[in-house]
């Protein structure tokens, strides 16, 4: 038996492949006889195509075909809704009619021998439009409740209005978050190859099975006939959860061309085709007694969505259970606009909602002249007051304590502008974090070989959090084999089904399936050979042993409210004359159940912290309200944090937490909670530094002058 591997800081098993360029990403697969595709996109947000002249494009060198709504094959577009699709509405149909619903909508597809030829021909397709009035400014759209299930969108507990009116201390403010784009380094890319009615897709995705099912529905074929291969993903942050129209375009192009087609989006196209975190406007009203007991919380928010789908996210969920309060009102609305449908972006909903809630809590602490940590401690609930269920575990107190201590919070002087370093104003701020524990059905297979090695597989994805590594660890640990003897494979629909690689559920779900499959295989091998040692057993057996396992949640969600919790403490330095803010230190403490690999988990948290710096200080898709175009659709003007923005101190604490209820592995997921809380902690620190409360992200220098 080898030493336990779960809980060890194993280095990434795919690290060498990645840094030597040997990892193959979607666009890099070598498929013979490849044709290249380029997309013509609309430059209006609403209207119809009046004319589309493809003559010059068709004559351009190397062009195989120009596909528009006039000559595109009619696609089946059978009903299909995967988990990441909006529950209400119908996905965008590409090249099926003359309707334009959003800026950058695909309106023609050019297929050519080379990429350059395709791109050039796409540029000389001439289009005229019949423009219709477009709603492209959130401020000009009246929000409405989403369709159906009104009970989910507007929730009341107690008497929030009268309780707020009667509260001795009140805060009532509006917080705005602009649209943000995911901006992964790897562009979305698909290679599509048909063989009769069977289709192979090499695709950048966070869920191969959903791509197969969506494309099967779009083309009216059986999902078994679509194979999707996606071993490596160069970042996605949620943009790869859905199967977007470009995948359909690649498959459509391959059908028209009669040969494999590759389609790679440009950076500019990434702002028009793969979703974004929606612009949100939130109003939070908090009422409290003099001793800091919350008496009322009213939290309303609305966010942009498209005219054809009602995208919603968990904007207000945390407000219902994070802090104890007898009187709560939440109302979530949407603003349908002529934009493409937003989607999940790291900690969707929670990151945005908690920015508003935790900023308002800080404002309340100021109004009460109370330490913000103390305010939260005074409102610690002893159960989920919304679901009326106990928490399976909740380590908030320990997170506040551990992070505050590591940070040195006790040294903080409460008054704004009271801490300085040279010219700089220093600010210390904090916020809470939470994210639900998600666990979904998953399957895995383990194959033990006579040479004492094992192959373990599941159709999971790894967009960066380290699935390759953590699953190898769980498998090797369960089998009792050295890690080098275990080969884990993911990202292929031929493998046992895994759930969506989102919602921080991969470790819980796929990890539990891998563990179960490995246990089963090991038990079979040891039992069959009558041996105690797996390697010996396999030698004796002389043939492979295979075991597949399926795991699924039981009724624990009926018995428990299950969430990860955390606390984030931040130090900023603000130049009072020039308005520049730099984050100097972040300390985060998380109660996230069992930590399978502390090294990779820490990387996750650091990534979340840096993402939070982006959200707080710079990220902003500058949508032109006149026409819905994203003016900064490139990485020069859309600023994401660079190395120099990463603070020298990023301290991650995992508080000891054993939760037997959540799932067999006892993990809660980390990918998303790591982002939640960072932006409000920074905004709160900026207030502490400057005395200025900025309620619209990002907090750029102009807002602090």
């Amino acid at each position: 038996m080898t030493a336990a591997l779960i809980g060890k800081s194993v280095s990434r098993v795919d690290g060498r492949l990645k840094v030597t360029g040997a990892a193959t990403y979607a666009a890099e697969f070598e498929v013979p006889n490849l044709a290249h595709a380029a997309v013509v996109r609309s430059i209006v947000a609403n209207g119809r195509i009046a004319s589309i002249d493809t003559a010059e494009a068709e004559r351009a060198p190397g062009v195989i075909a120009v596909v528009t709504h006039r000559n595109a094959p009619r696609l089946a577009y059978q009903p299909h809704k995967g988990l990441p699709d909006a529950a209400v509405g119908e996905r965008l149909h590409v090249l099926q009619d003359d309707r334009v619903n959003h800026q950058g909508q695909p309106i023609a597809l050019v297929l050519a021998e080379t990429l350059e030829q395709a791109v050039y021909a796409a540029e000389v397709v001439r289009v005229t439009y019949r423009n219709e009035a477009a709603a492209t400014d959130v401020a000009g759209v009246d929000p409405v409740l989403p369709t159906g299930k009104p009970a989910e969108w507007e929730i009341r507990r107690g008497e929030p209005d009268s309780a707020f009116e009667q509260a001795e201390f009140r805060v009532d403010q509006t917080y705005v978050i602009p649209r943000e784009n995911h901006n992964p380094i790897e562009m979305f890319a698909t290679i599509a190859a048909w063989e009769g009615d069977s289709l192979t897709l090499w695709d950048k995705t966070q869920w191969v099975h959903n791509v197969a099912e969506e494309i099967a529905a779009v083309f009216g074929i059986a999902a078994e006939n679509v194979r999707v291969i996606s071993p490596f993903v160069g970042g996605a942050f949620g943009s790869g959860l859905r199967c977007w129209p470009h995948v359909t375009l690649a498959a459509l192009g391959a059908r028209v061309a009669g040969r494999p087609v590759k389609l790679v989006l440009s950076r500019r196209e990434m702002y028009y085709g793969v979703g974004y975190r929606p612009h949100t406007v939130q109003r939070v009203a908090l009422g409290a007694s003099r001793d800091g007991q919350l008496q009322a919380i009213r939290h309303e928010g609305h966010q942009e969505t498209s005219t054809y789908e009602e995208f919603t996210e968990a904007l207000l969920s945390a407000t219902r259970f994070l802090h104890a309060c007898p009187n709560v009102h939440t109302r979530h609305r949407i603003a349908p606009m002529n934009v493409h449908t937003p989607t999940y972006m790291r900690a969707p909903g929670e990151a945005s909602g908690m920015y508003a809630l935790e900023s308002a809590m800080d404002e309340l602490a100021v109004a009460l002249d109370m330490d913000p940590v103390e305010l939260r401690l005074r409102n610690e609930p002893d159960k989920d007051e919304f679901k009326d269920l106990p928490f399976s575990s909740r380590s908030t107190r320990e997170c506040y304590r551990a992070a505050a201590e590591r940070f040195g919070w006790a040294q903080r002087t409460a008054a704004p502008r009271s801490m300085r370093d040279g010219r700089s104003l220093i600010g210390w701020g904090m916020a809470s974090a939470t994210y639900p524990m998600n666990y979904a059905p998953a399957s895995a297979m383990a194959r033990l070989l006579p040479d004492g090695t094992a192959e373990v597989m599941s159709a999971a994805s790894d967009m960066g959090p380290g699935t390759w590594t953590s699953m190898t660890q769980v498998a090797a640990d369960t089998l009792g084999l050295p890690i080098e003897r275990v080969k884990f494979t993911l990202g292929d629909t031929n493998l046992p089904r895994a759930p969506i690689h989102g919602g921080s559920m991969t470790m819980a779900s796929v990890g539990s399936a891998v563990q179960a499959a490995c246990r089963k295989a090991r038990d079979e091998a040891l039992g069959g050979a009558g041996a105690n040692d797996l390697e010996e057993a396999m030698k004796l057996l002389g043939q492979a042993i295979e075991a597949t396992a399926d795991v699924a949640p039981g009724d624990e969600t009926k018995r428990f409210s299950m969430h990860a919790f955390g606390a984030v403490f931040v130090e900023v330095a603000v130049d009072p004359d020039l308005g520049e803010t730099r984050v100097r230190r972040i300390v985060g403490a998380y109660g996230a159940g069992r930590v399978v690999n502390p090294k990779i988990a820490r990387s996750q948290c650091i990534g979340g912290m840096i993402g939070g710096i982006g959200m707080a200080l710079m990220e902003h898709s500058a949508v032109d309200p006149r026409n819905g175009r994203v003016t900064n659709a490139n990485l020069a003007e859309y600023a994401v944090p660079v190395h120099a923005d990463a603070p020298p101190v990023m301290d991650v604490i995992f508080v000891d937490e054993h939760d037997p209820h959540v799932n067999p592995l006892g993990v809660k997921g980390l990918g998303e909670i790591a982002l939640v809380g960072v932006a409000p902690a920074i905004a709160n620190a900026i207030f502490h530094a400057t005395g200025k409360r900025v309620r619209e992200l990002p907090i750029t220098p102009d807002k602090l002058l």
Partner: protein
Amino acid sequence: MHPFVLERPRDLSAALSFGAQPGRNDAPVEYIAGGTDMVQLLQEYVRRPDRLVSLAGVLDDGIEIGPQGLRFGAAATMAEVAAHQGVVEQFPLISQALLNSASPQVRNQATMGGNLLQRTRCPYFRDVGYEACNKRAPGSGCAALEGENRWHAVLGTSDDCIAVHPSDLAVALVALDASVELRGTGGDRSVPLSELHRLPRDTPHLETVLAPGEVITAITVPANAAGLRSHYLKLRDRASFEFAVVSAAVAIETAGARIRQARVALGGVGTKPWRLPNVEQALADRSLEPGELRSAAALAAEGAQGRGHNDFKIELMQRAIVRAVEIAGAHA
């Protein structure tokens, strides 16, 4: 990308014979040096020349410092100039401006000539999804005037164009009275850098005074700029790798606690690298006391015009001047 022929002339005179004209979108022939800006513009279909004339290997890339001052060839890279010992010691403002520009990868590839002639970052200029851009398509209008204009200029603007000239290097050089040496089929001439770029007025598509075919062969900085106390201050939304929101290049000579002479230029706010003689005159003979600096810096706002999102720059640029002078003065 529009198909083009790439010409690789053997020498400079062969290069000149193609009649390339930088900085005009209707020019069918253009030069390409490091390509760091040009390739983006080609890819985005903003520039559509039929012919690209490569300057690789035909221009001087030397860096010399002599009694006349500093001279570097137009083909010297940003990285080479930034790291050159003599530049670092005698003209630190230039080195600083360069090191605050772009990224190491870009600086390794980008040339001095290309840096001065890089095109504006105005997002409407760079997105052919917008029809209105007088610089790209003369007479089409200016989408920035009523648009997302946080990135735009407040000095030297017109009602036809408010695009910023994005180079940091040019801001430092214009403060140091640099000149560019030009060569055309008609011969050589030298033009002060302050006169290389034109104001947009009602012809924003004409960006420079270069005649067809002319290239920048070298840049010179007079010796009297050496040894001044200087500072290049660059303000932006993130700590590195971003164009300036506002930048200030200052070089001062002090006598005791007083300023004898000052040179001040601003970036991120002007339609061309913006020298401020009125501020310089006001600074002369003042102390380094913040209030005094501030009242001199206030003159930078003369004629400044914000367009909404960029209004804050008028205040921020004054503060940037004050801070840059303070830092330069503190280097005593």
